[in-house]
């Protein structure tokens, strides 16, 4: 249980962000400012770093067997005559996505995956390495099963090295693997579901009623393999090949009591034109508008984020951001889609907790390039924030980290997740070597950075692919996999943008499992800490209303915290806030109603 302290709200003190952090939506080719993150000293494990409102509390280097110190992404020096050849680089050991089960963190890797014990105090104890080359190694976990995405042509069914030769081979594996780790000392591969385009990322989707059934939405982005290697696979545009493996996702069904039988059950045409039924009904490639990005064609999704409790999924699908109804998970149907001149490649999506907004990330340049330089437009390579309205998705604003990064650092928006602060929409996101950034998009028209961590480049003169693949919140901590360096753990620190009670409220939320792209509805416990978090939000909004009411609330929360809640008093205060909300503007009224509801729940 988290120990908390009741804070006195700072009445009548403006706590709005200073102008330096205001993040207005930009349409033109404006660029980011230089800040403390711009010129950090470089180094493999000793780079300078800058932390603002987060603290790094732990770190572990990539484990033995997943790191080649001689090859860390420098240009290989010329070998002396007669010397053995150099190892070809570090990308084959790149750390990728994370999944969490209790205190265990599963870190994907192009070379397999690693498992750590992470009790939350910053310690990271490495307990298992699975070697299975094939990239990119995005992971999910469910019970004793671990799921792994692989797409590269070198991937082998037996998880071996050395690659695969030939245009068609029975030894080649591209798709989703399933491992059983019930005996952590004796892990087994139980299934290997082959797919036409391999697996770049995947998302677990629970069956609405049958607890024995789990679906996997497979997003594949690379080349189509020939039918001679995998039956039913063929390439080409739908005009010449109606059966093309392009323009679909794979839906895999897993019976949890027989995971070895996992198989594809549908390849829905979710990009079809609503009127004509044409399979390639969405963005066809090219510039959406003059002066805009050259946007990829929509023939696949990069990532699909599901929110099963809301029957919704948000697909980041190359040339479009889409919204799907997944009430029948085997037959998702498209509700809405967005295209945008500033988006080069729709990469990933995150809902807010109420499923009224979606944040889509743009991976301009594929993550390999420096895209946060002084002359890179701030409207390119960042996030789009859209509201979900009765008319579908409506874009409200854009966000990119407000910091110029040097050309030695690959930087673009990448994977992230919601931080469960009640009453606010806050997210942490990895930006490769742009570091990690915490943004508040409660006001979807005005997203704002409220915390960050960044470190210098790996090398001074060369761009060495590195940085945070992702940043995810799990049970009170932020975990960020660094492509080359390993895994870092952070905690939030209080600031004018996030109070101690708001952080404590987020840290109270515990879940058994956290998977990338599988969002679960956050429910906060009944606690004075939650009420205090709302009270802090009113104070920050400079809207506590009548002075006496705030002071009384603080007093009653202190009693509640001490285990002696006066439910009648709390109910009376709740009624007062409900009354105040009648005359407040929408944003303030919502906080007041949240607070009232939290106060009432104390008596239940």
């Amino acid at each position, binding site marked *: 249980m988290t120990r908390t302290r009741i804070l006195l709200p700072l009445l009548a003190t403006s706590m709005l962000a200073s102008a330096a952090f205001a993040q207005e939506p930009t349409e033109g080719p404006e660029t980011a400012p230089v*800040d*403390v993150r711009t010129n950090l000293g470089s180094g493999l494990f*000793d780079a300078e770093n800058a932390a603002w409102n987060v603290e790094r509390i732990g770190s572990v280097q990539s484990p033995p067997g997943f790191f080649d110190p001689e090859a860390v992404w420098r240009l290989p020096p010329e*070998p002396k005559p007669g010397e053995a050849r150099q190892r070809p680089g570090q990308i084959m050991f790149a750390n990728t996505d994370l999944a969490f089960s209790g205190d265990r963190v599963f870190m994907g890797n192009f070379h397999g995956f690693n498992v750590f014990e992470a009790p939350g105090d910053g310690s990271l104890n490495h307990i*298992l*390495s699975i070697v299975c080359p094939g990239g990119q190694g995005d992971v999910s976990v469910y019970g004793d099963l671990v799921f792994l995405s692989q797409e590269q*042509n070198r991937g082998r069914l037996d998880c071996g090295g050395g690659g695969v030769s030939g*245009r068609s081979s029975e030894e080649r594996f591209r798709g989703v693997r399933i491992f059983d780790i019930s005996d952590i000392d004796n892990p087994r*591969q139980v299934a290997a579901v082959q797919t036409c385009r391999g697996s770049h990322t995947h998302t677990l989707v629970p069956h609405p009623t049958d607890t024995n059934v789990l679906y996997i939405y497979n997003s594949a982005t690379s*080349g189509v393999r020939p039918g001679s290697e995998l039956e039913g696979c063929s390439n080409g545009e739908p005009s010449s090949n109606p059966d093309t493996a392009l323009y679909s996702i794979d839906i895999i069904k897993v019976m949890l009591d027989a995971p070895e039988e996992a198989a594809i059950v549908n390849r829905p045409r979710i990009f079809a034109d609503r009127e004509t039924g044409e399979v390639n009904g969405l963005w066809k490639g090219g510039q959406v508008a003059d002066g805009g990005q050259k946007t990829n064609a929509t023939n696949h999704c990069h990532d699909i984020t599901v929110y099963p409790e809301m029957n919704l999924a948000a697909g980041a699908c190359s040339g479009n951001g889409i919204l799907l109804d997944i009430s029948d998970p085997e037959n998702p149907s498209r509700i809405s889609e967005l295209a945008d001149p500033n988006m080069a490649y729709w990469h990933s999506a995150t809902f807010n907790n109420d499923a009224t907004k979606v944040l889509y990330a743009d991976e301009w340049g594929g993550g390999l390039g420096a895209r946060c330089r002084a002359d890179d437009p701030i409207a390119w390579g960042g996030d789009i924030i859209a509201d979900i309205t009765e008319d579908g998705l409506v874009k409200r604003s854009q966000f990119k980290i407000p910091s110029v990064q040097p050309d030695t650092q690959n930087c673009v928006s990448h994977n992230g997740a919601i931080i469960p602060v009640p009453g606010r929409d806050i997210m942490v996101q990895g930006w490769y070597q742009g570091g990690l950034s915490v943004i508040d998009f409660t006001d979807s028209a005005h997203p704002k950075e409220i915390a960050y961590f960044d470190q210098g480049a790996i090398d001074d003169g060369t761009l060495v692919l590195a940085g945070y693949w992702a940043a995810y919140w799990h049970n009170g901590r932020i975990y960020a996999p660094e492509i080359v360096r390993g895994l870092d753990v952070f905690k939030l620190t209080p600031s004018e943008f996030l109070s101690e009670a708001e952080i404590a409220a987020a840290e109270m939320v515990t879940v058994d499992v956290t998977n990338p792209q599988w969002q679960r509805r956050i429910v906060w416990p009944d606690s004075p800490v939650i009420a205090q978090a709302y009270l802090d939000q009113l104070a920050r909004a400079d809207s506590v209303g009548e002075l006496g009411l705030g002071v009384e609330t603080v007093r009653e929360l202190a009693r509640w915290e001490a285990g002696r809640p006066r439910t009648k008093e709390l109910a009376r205060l709740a009624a007062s806030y409900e009354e105040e909300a009648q005359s407040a503007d929408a944003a303030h009224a919502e906080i007041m109603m949240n607070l009232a509801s939290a106060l009432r729940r104390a008596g239940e």
Partner: protein
Amino acid sequence: MMGSVTAAAAWLAAFSLITVQDAPIVQPGAPGEAATRLTPEASVEMSDAGYTEADIAFMQDMIVHHGQAVEMVALIEARTENEAVRAMGARISLSQSSEIELMQNWLRARGQSTESKLLKSGGHGDHDMGDHKMDHGDKDPMDMPLMHGMLSPRQMKTLAAADGLAFDRLFLSGMIQHHQGALDMVDMLLSDPSNGQDALLSEFLSSIVGDQSAEILRMQTLLSALGSPS
């Protein structure tokens, strides 16, 4: 308020106690098969996926391909004052030169020659490029580029003879054609899944696609800003 820059040494000292424990390293084997324990060295060894003859030829040819871009940029100095074109050229020259170095090192590290067989054979290339052969017919050798997207000897001559606005246009349209050719060469290489499995090569191919696509877009914007020739 803006955050503190922490000395790296202090950070390292704070976490020096956290070291990686000896956890098992396991290769699972195919579904249903028994797993194998590996040493860290054996694991690292398995990352090497090898390379093909086509990979070698691609790198050898791309050195020549990139070399022409550097030659084109070298013309800029004496022929145009357009700042945007000069800046674009500087960026291209820098990245293509460093990539040439990378490709040479990649080949040398594998004990391979850095010379293109197309150059040795006198050119008119693309014979290693799958089924995308160019139809040369009875063309004048002056109009035959050595490989995909490269400027023909005549195009290079015309570019070298131009200056000012005419040069800017020829340079940008030529470099767009040149970059597009590199993208085509990557596509052709990867049309056989045996190719491009080597990790550094695979990474390099992706960066060619990412960077050159971005540069094409910039150059198209610059070109349209110059307006159409009167």
